[in-house]
C-alpha cells in the first residue's frame, strides 16, 4: 500500500469532480431539492382545519333540542380555530346537493323529534352524509365529525347517569344498600363503568416518533447509495479504462488495492459531503434533522462500501458506462420503494419485506432509522452491523476479483 499513490488518486478524483457539472448537481443540488420537496409536502406542523358542515334540524320546544347541539358545534374550537363552520339547511335534499357540489364537507341531519327523545331519555337519531370520492378526505372528515359526536354522546351519558343517580340517592333507602355491604360511592362507580367501560386517554411520548422530515433525511442518504455511490465508482473506473489511464496506472508501481482504495475513499468523501449538506440544509430550513451517532456513521460507511462494491462489480461485468448506468437505474428504481428507502416498511406489501431485511442497503437504512429516529439502543443494532460488515466484505472481495480480472485482460 503506497500512501502517496492513494493520496494522489483521491486528490485527482476530487479535483475532477469539482469541475464536473453533473456530479456537482448530485452532490449539492440534489440533497437540497429532495429535502425541500419532501419537507414542504410533509414537513412542519399541519394547521388545524375547519370543516364545513351542513346541518338540518326541526324546531322543537323540549328543554334540550338539536338547536342546542348546533350551537355547541358552532362554538367548538381546536387550538383556537373553530372546528366546524356550520351552515343550516331547510331540508335534507338541499344539504345533500351542497355536499355533492363540494360547498360543504359533511351533512348532519337531526331526525324529527330529536329533542323530545333526548329530553325524554329515549334514543335519538342523527344521520350523517360524507363525500367518499377522495378516500383520504373522507377518512379525515368522517373521523372528525364522528369523533365530535361520540365525545358528545359520552358527555350526555355521564349527565344522564348523574341525573339517575340523584334520583336513586333520594329514593333508595340506605338500609337496603348497607344490607348488601355496599356504599353509595361503589354503586355510583359501577353505574359509570357500565355506561363507559373503557376510558381511553391519549398520551404522547416525546422522542419516540420521528418527524417526516427526519425520515426523508434518511431516505435521501439511501438514495445516494442507490444511485450516486454506485455510479461514481463504477463509471469512474470505466472512464479510466476508456481513456487508457487505467492501463497506465496498472503499469505503474501502484497496485490494484492502491487504485481501488483511492477511488473508494474519494467516492466516500464525496457522498459524505452530500449527506452532510442534506443534514444541515434540513436543519436550517425546516428546523429538524438527524445527527448520526458514531454507530450511525459506521452504518453509513458500511452501506456505502457495499454500494461501491455493487457498482464496481456491475461496471466490471458490463464494461460499458451506458450499460452500467442503465443497470444501476434498473435495479435502484424499484429498490427505492421496495427496500423501504423512500417508503416506510409498514406500508410495503408483505412480499417486499424480505428485501428491506435482507438487501444490505435496505437493512442498513432500517438500522439507521431504528438507531437515529426511534432511539433504539446500540446493542440492538450491533449484531446487524456485524452481519452487514460480513456481507460487505464478501461483496468487496467479489468486486476486487472482478476488477483484477478485467485489468489483466485489458488489450
Amino acid at each position, binding site marked *: 500500500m503506497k500512501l502517496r499513490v492513494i493520496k494522489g488518486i483521491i486528490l485527482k478524483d476530487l479535483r475532477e469532480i469539482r469541475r464536473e457539472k453533473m456530479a456537482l448537481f448530485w452532490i449539492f443540488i440534489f440533497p437540497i431539492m429532495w429535502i425541500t420537496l419532501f419537507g414542504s409536502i410533509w414537513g412542519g406542523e399541519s394547521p388545524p382545519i375547519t370543516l364545513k358542515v351542513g346541518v338540518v334540524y326541526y324546531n322543537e320546544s323540549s328543554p334540550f333540542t338539536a338547536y342546542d347541539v348546533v350551537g355547541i358545534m358552532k362554538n367548538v374550537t381546536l387550538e383556537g380555530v373553530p372546528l366546524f363552520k356550520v351552515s343550516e339547511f331547510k331540508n335534507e335534499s338541499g344539504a345533500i346537493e351542497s355536499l355533492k357540489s363540494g360547498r360543504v364537507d359533511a351533512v348532519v341531519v337531526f331526525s324529527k323529534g330529536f329533542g323530545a327523545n333526548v329530553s325524554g331519555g329515549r334514543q335519538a337519531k342523527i344521520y350523517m352524509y360524507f363525500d367518499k370520492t377522495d378516500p383520504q378526505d373522507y377518512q379525515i372528515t368522517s373521523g372528525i365529525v364522528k369523533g365530535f359526536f361520540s365525545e358528545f354522546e359520552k358527555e350526555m351519558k355521564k349527565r344522564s347517569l348523574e341525573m339517575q343517580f340523584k334520583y336513586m340517592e333520594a329514593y333508595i333507602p340506605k338500609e337496603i344498600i348497607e344490607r348488601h355491604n355496599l356504599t353509595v360511592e361503589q354503586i355510583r362507580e359501577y353505574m359509570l363503568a357500565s355506561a363507559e367501560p373503557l376510558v381511553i386517554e391519549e398520551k404522547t411520548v416525546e422522542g419516540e416518533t420521528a418527524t417526516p422530515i427526519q425520515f426523508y433525511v434518511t431516505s435521501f442518504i439511501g438514495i445516494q447509495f442507490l444511485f450516486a455511490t454506485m455510479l461514481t465508482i463504477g463509471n469512474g473506473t470505466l472512464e479510466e479504462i476508456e481513456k487508457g489511464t487505467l492501463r497506465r496506472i496498472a503499469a505503474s*508501481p501502484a497496485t490494484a488495492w492502491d487504485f481501488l482504495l483511492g477511488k473508494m475513499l474519494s467516492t466516500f468523501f464525496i457522498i459524505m459531503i452530500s449527506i452532510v449538506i442534506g443534514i444541515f440544509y434540513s436543519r436550517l430550513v425546516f428546523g429538524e434533522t438527524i445527527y448520526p451517532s458514531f454507530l450511525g456513521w459506521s452504518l453509513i460507511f458500511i452501506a456505502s462500501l457495499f454500494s461501491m462494491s455493487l457498482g464496481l462489480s456491475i461496471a466490471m461485468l458490463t464494461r460499458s458506462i451506458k450499460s452500467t448506468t442503465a443497470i444501476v437505474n434498473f435495479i435502484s428504481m424499484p429498490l427505492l420503494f421496495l427496500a423501504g428507502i423512500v417508503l416506510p416498511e409498514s406500508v410495503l406489501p408483505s412480499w417486499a419485506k424480505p428485501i428491506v431485511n435482507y438487501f444490505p442497503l435496505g437493512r442498513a437504512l432500517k438500522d439507521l432509522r431504528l438507531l437515529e429516529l426511534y432511539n433504539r439502543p446500540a446493542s440492538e443494532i450491533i449484531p446487524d452491523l456485524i452481519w452487514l460488515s460480513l456481507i460487505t466484505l464478501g461483496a468487496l472481495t467479489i468486486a476486487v476479483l472482478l476488477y483484477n480480472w478485467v485489468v489483466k485482460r485489458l488489450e
Partner: protein
Amino acid sequence: MYAVEIKNLKKSYGDFQALKGIDLEVEEGEIFGLLGPNGAGKTTLMRILAEGLKYDEGEIRIFGESISKRTRRLIGYVSQESIAYNLLTVEENLNFYADLYDAPKKKVSELIKRFNLPPKKKAKELSGGFKRRLNLAISLLYDPKILILDEPSTGLDVPSRRKLWEEIKQFKEEGKTILLATHYMEEAEILADRIAIINEGKIIAVGTPKELKEMLGEESIVQVEGLLKGAEKLKNNFPRVLEKENSIRIHVKEPRQALPKIIEILIKEGSQIKAVKVEEPTLEDVFLELTGRGLE
C-alpha cells in the same frame, strides 16, 4: 548490451496475430525508428514494452534484464492518445503522475519550465502540440533511460511538429535511448539513426536510412505530377507504382527507356501532365519495393 532486445515476439488478439515473430535490437543512445503503415503492429509492440501488455511468445530484455514491472521504470512512454485528465490543469496532471510514480516533486516545476507549459491551464484547453508536450513531460517525470514515442507528431501542425522534433533530438543529446513509431517516412528519415520497417506484424528490413535506400539497388524513381489518369494501366507495365495526391511515383530500371512509355500511357488515358522528374528514392519507395504498397 542493447537497450532493448527482442527475440521472436508474438502476440495475438483473439484469432488475429498482430505480431508474427519480431526480432529487434535497439542500441543505447540511438534514435530507433519503427516505420510502418497503420495496423502494422507498432503500437502493440510498444505497449508490450511499456505497459506490460501480455504477449504469447518471445523474449524481451531491457538493458540485459528480462522485462518485468521493475524494468518498466526504465521506460517512459508517450502513447498515441493523451493520458492527461482533461479536467485537471497541467500542473495537477503532472502532480498526479508524480504521485503515481513516486517522482520527486521538484521534477514537476522543472518539466513545466522545460516544455514551456502553462501550469494553470486545463488539459482540455491545450492545443495538440501542448497536449503532446504535456504527455512527454509526464513520461519524463521519473527520468527513464528509454523513451518510447508512439506516432509523436501525428495530428500536429507543421510548426509544432518541427518543435517536437527538436526536442526529441535534445533527448538523444541527453543520452536517452529513443524508440519512435511512425508512419511518416519524413519523420523517420529526419530523426532516426536506424530504422526497422514493419508490415503486418513482421519486420521486413532494418538499417540506417542510407542502407535501406541502397536496397533499391539500381532502380530509379520517376515522379509524374499533374491531373493524372491511368495509374492502373501503368501497373501492368511497371510492377512498382505508387499513387499519391496529384502525383505518381514509378520504380524503373532504365529511366531513359521508360519515360516515353509512361508519358504515352498517361496521356492516352487523358492525363494533364505538369512535370516529370527523376527523383532520389525515399523510405516510402523502399517500403513500396518491399511490400508493393504505400505507407499511408
